[in-house]
């Protein structure tokens, strides 16, 4: 993989808490979907199958959890890609 892409991913993961945690808390995070849910009185069902819900890692500060969650997500995508590539190559052979 290109070194520029690796650097870009690292930079984006590192700065992500600045936008999604610090600035979001500053101005208040609300997506258009939240506005619709409020108008139509729709409620999210509260159940979870993962300890990493909303990119938070229990026991860690939000910003650090966010950075680690981003790294975990990228890692999973690349591992998945690697496994798929091996499977496809084996199938072709």
């Amino acid at each position, binding site marked *: *993989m*290109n070194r520029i*892409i690796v650097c*870009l*991913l690292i930079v*984006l*993961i590192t*700065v*992500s808490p600045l*936008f*999604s945690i610090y*600035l*979001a808390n*500053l*101005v*208040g*995070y*609300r*997506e*258009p*979907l939240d*506005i*619709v*849910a409020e*108008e*139509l*009185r*729709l*409620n*999210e*069902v509260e*159940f*979870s*199958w*993962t300890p*990493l*819900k*909303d*990119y938070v890692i229990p026991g860690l500060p939000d910003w650090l959890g*966010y950075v680690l*969650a*981003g790294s*975990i*997500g*990228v890692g*999973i*995508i*690349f591992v*998945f*890609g690697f496994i*798929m*590539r091996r499977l*496809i*190559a084996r199938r*072709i052979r």
Partner: protein
Amino acid sequence: MHIPDGFLDQYTALATYGVSVGIIGYAIRRGNLSDENRFARAVTISAFIFVAQMIAWPIPGGTSLHLVGGALAGILLGPWLGILAMTIVLIVQCLVFHDGGITALGANLLNMAIVAVLAGYITYRTIVRTLHRISSIRKRFIAGFMAGWISLILAGTMTGLEIGIASIVLRRITYGLAVSLPIMSIWHGILGVIEGSITGSILSYIGFKHPRVIEAEVQKVYE
């Protein structure tokens, strides 16, 4: 734009799962996964879009926006591989980080991995073919901007449609669609300007450095 659990009724959830699984299955067959370079590029773009979606841009006034990236994936990878790249992103977000509900995964895939990708790809291809007289950099920016903007509006409108239908079924709110459709389409029409600007800028840069990487320009007759 990720719909959580509890927002959709069982019929809408099942219908969107059915449509998404069908189209993604078709994309697996048509995506030419045996091409190692294209597949590696798809995985890299998935990782980039995953990280880009983590960066929410808070907009003063109380709303926020993150890049969806469907148009970008479709333009850079072609429609079928673009759909698969976005599918990987949304499945990881849902299963690992509970970003979007498991019951709404079919709808989220339909909106962001299928509608956004196909709309972005078709819009970009149409505009690039239409604009002959202007420079490549400007042409790519305009086409990328329009592709990103239109893809976000359509994905947002689709989300509004699903939620509106679900509110009628779940809560008997007869005016559900009259609320959800305009809110989702108008807001995404406004926020889509940023999605379009980012998509257009990335495509201008990539097109300047590595024009052959943009599948939507390379493919003559798509598969």
